[in-house]
């Protein structure tokens, strides 16, 4: 792992104890320039994580707590009539000035607000009154969703879920982590300890490097076969989209880069596959005996990995 990334990891770990794997995944998503959907119960540190990350990387942080009456103009800004100059002036919204946006409980927002956010995520620009304003770069959205207490919420439609690079969940800390957390927070707020160890420009250059990681055809073939198999699976209604395949590729590249390699292996694809694809697969109504995770595991087990495929191709030749 690059020293800068190592530092970031260490800083974030100060605030979130014992969740190294999730932080690594979030860093990977950050390198892959993708947005993250955190799906978890309240109080496990989703917000803390986002804040710590923004502090460690030196990103401009904005937090939006979504409720049904948050309007699109709150996010993307609005034009206001200025009496003095007698013309409309653009008032920027929450997204304009931010590198890292934490959208808390995105499923509580009205659907028009959700779609405004999603446009910004996809295009990395906002459009108000026919004028487009580019957002800051890098731009990353971490949206959270509570899986409990969903009454009166707008669950994200499948099409919008597809825009998030990964869906992660933090999960409860184990005994050691819980004890350490309680001990640490007796006197101070650990978030204050998190210091900035990387600049946004550095992050941009790292992202560029991650994009330059080699992916051989054997790996692309593996990704393609995985996605095709997911579409053909008996229990699956909607399989992995072409965008999903692209995201697997990007995420695998970022992971290889995080592990200090300049080439993607089958292991990278397997490691990111579940996180990238879990929210892209819809099961059939009739397939009650399956869960999405089971289907994905089965795909990983069944589809020939590139190592084996190369070996078998050598045998056939």
């Amino acid at each position, binding site marked *: 792992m690059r020293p800068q990334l190592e530092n970031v990891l260490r800083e974030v770990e100060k605030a979130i104890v014992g969740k190294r794997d999730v932080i690594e995944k979030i860093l990977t998503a950050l390198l892959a320039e993708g947005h993250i959907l955190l799906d978890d119960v309240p109080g496990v540190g989703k917000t803390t994580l986002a804040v710590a990350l923004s502090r460690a990387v030196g990103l401009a942080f904005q937090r939006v707590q979504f409720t049904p009456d948050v309007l699109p103009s709150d996010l993307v800004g609005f034009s206001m009539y200025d009496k003095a100059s007698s013309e409309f002036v653009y008032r920027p919204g929450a997204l304009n000035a931010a590198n890292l946006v934490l959208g808390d409980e995105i499923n509580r927002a009205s659907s028009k607000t959700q779609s405004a956010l999603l446009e910004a995520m996809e295009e990395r620009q906002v459009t108000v009154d026919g004028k487009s304003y580019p957002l800051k770069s890098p731009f990353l959205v971490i949206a959270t969703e509570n899986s409990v207490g969903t009454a009166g919420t707008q669950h994200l439609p499948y099409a919008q879920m597809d825009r998030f690079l990964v869906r992660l969940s933090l999960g409860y800390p184990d005994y050691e982590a819980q004890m350490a957390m309680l001990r640490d927070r007796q006197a101070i707020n650990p978030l204050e300890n998190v210091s900035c160890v990387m600049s946004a420009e550095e992050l941009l250059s790292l992202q560029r490097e991650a994009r330059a990681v080699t992916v*051989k055809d054997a790996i692309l073939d593996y990704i393609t076969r995985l996605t095709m198999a997911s579409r053909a699976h008996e229990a699956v209604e909607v399989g992995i989209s072409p965008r999903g395949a692209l995201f697997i590729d990007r995420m695998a590249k970022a992971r290889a880069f995080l592990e200090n390699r300049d080439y993607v*292996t*089958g292991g990278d694809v397997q490691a990111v596959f579940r996180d990238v694809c879990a929210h892209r697969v819809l099961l059939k109504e009739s397939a009650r005996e399956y869960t999405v995770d089971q289907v994905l595991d089965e795909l990983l087990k069944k589809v020939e*990995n590139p190592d*084996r495929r*190369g070996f078998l191709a050598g*045998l056939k030749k």
Partner: protein
Amino acid sequence: MRKRWFAYAVWLLLAACLYFFENNTGTRVILACALLFPLIPPLRGALFGADVPPEGKAPEPQTVRVFVCREADEPGDVRAYRPGDPIRRIHWKLSAKKDELLIRETAAETETVQAEQFGASSADELKNRSRKRLLRALICAFLLCAALLALIPEANHGAQALFNRLFAASESVNAYVYDRFPVPEEQPVFLAAVLLTAALLALVLTAFLLKRRAAALCLAAAFALLQAYFGLSFPAWINIPLYGCLALAALKRPLGRGPLIGFCAAALSVALLTALLCPGVDAATEAASEAVRDRLSRIAQQITGSVSEAPEGETETRHIHTRSLEAGDNEAATDGEFRLVTVEEEQISQPYWINYLKIALLLLLSAALVILPFAPFVLLNARKKKAQEIRKAFASENVNEAVCAIFRQVIAWLSETGFGADNRLYREWADTLLGGMPEGYAERFSRCAEDYEEAAYSSHALAEEKRRLAMDLLKETETALWKAAGRKQRLRLKYWMCLYE
């Protein structure tokens, strides 16, 4: 139940009537049977079914009472309430309409349906038991019949006479003289035949009931021996079902569909092949042959002139032939016809296409004989060449290619000796390698797996050092696995997989 008793009574009556009208052996037997049958428990069970309580631990069938209620709209289905009627039977709807309490008729409109519910296994068991009971009853019946008949002197003598006849028939075929039974020739054979048939059936059924393979096999062997002893065998339509039945009894389990179909297919193909290669005497062919013989004789008569009888045998034919040669040009046409005829005669015993079939088979066989001995060598050689090509890649100038090839060879070794972990990434194979391989092998393997990944999936060239490392791993793998392999495994590895040199 009642019906069965009625039938039995009718049977008894008929037997009695027969006996009084004509007092002979047959009617006596019938009457005796009619009288004795209900006395034997298994027979009674077979005749009167449920009358006899099932012996032993027969499971008491669970009965479920189902009340089927019809729509009680008709006025006949209800009656006025009487004190003591159960409240449940009150027809509330009608009662409300008529403003008096009405009761549903119980006996007339409520049917009690007894549904017996069994589990699948107990139903099977029950079926099995009832079948056994029936078999036992039948055996008893046949044995009783045989015993009764044996007591009657007419039947006894008839049987002996039958045997005498059998001896006579056998003597006419075989050169062996049997001792005859001292009975006159003219004996009524009907009773004796019934006796023998009954005894035979009892035997066969016993074999079925016992279902001991030995019993059925012994019986089959006994039949075969008897047939051989008398030198007379039953016609095929008796023998085939008889032995077939015995074979069925000899089977431990009823025959499945798969083996049955296979057996039928095999039998059919054998029959087909026999019919193809040895078509036997065909009526059409025979007629044609007859016609040719006629023509031949006519020609012979033409040639010989005065000779009236048809020429038969070789000498005569030759004679005709020489005569025709001597006769000169004017008889050349006849001679030609004669040759034609002889050729035709040779072929006529079989359809002509059989010969082509035989030739084709022969060609196929000879080709197979020529090719087959060399096939293994050709195959092994091809494999060896492939293996050598793979080995050539080990020394390739491109280190990446070389490392890939070497590592794949290691994988081939491991897969062939059962250490493989199929569809898992190579770096994860180390877990399965921990047992049975030398100390530290797993770590070296995972390090090499990483090198392999780099060689296969990266775009930059590897250091020469990695080739040496991979080669070391391959050598270590080879020696370890070769040492552990058995003799059969070694042959396979060396000649079939061409892994070892």
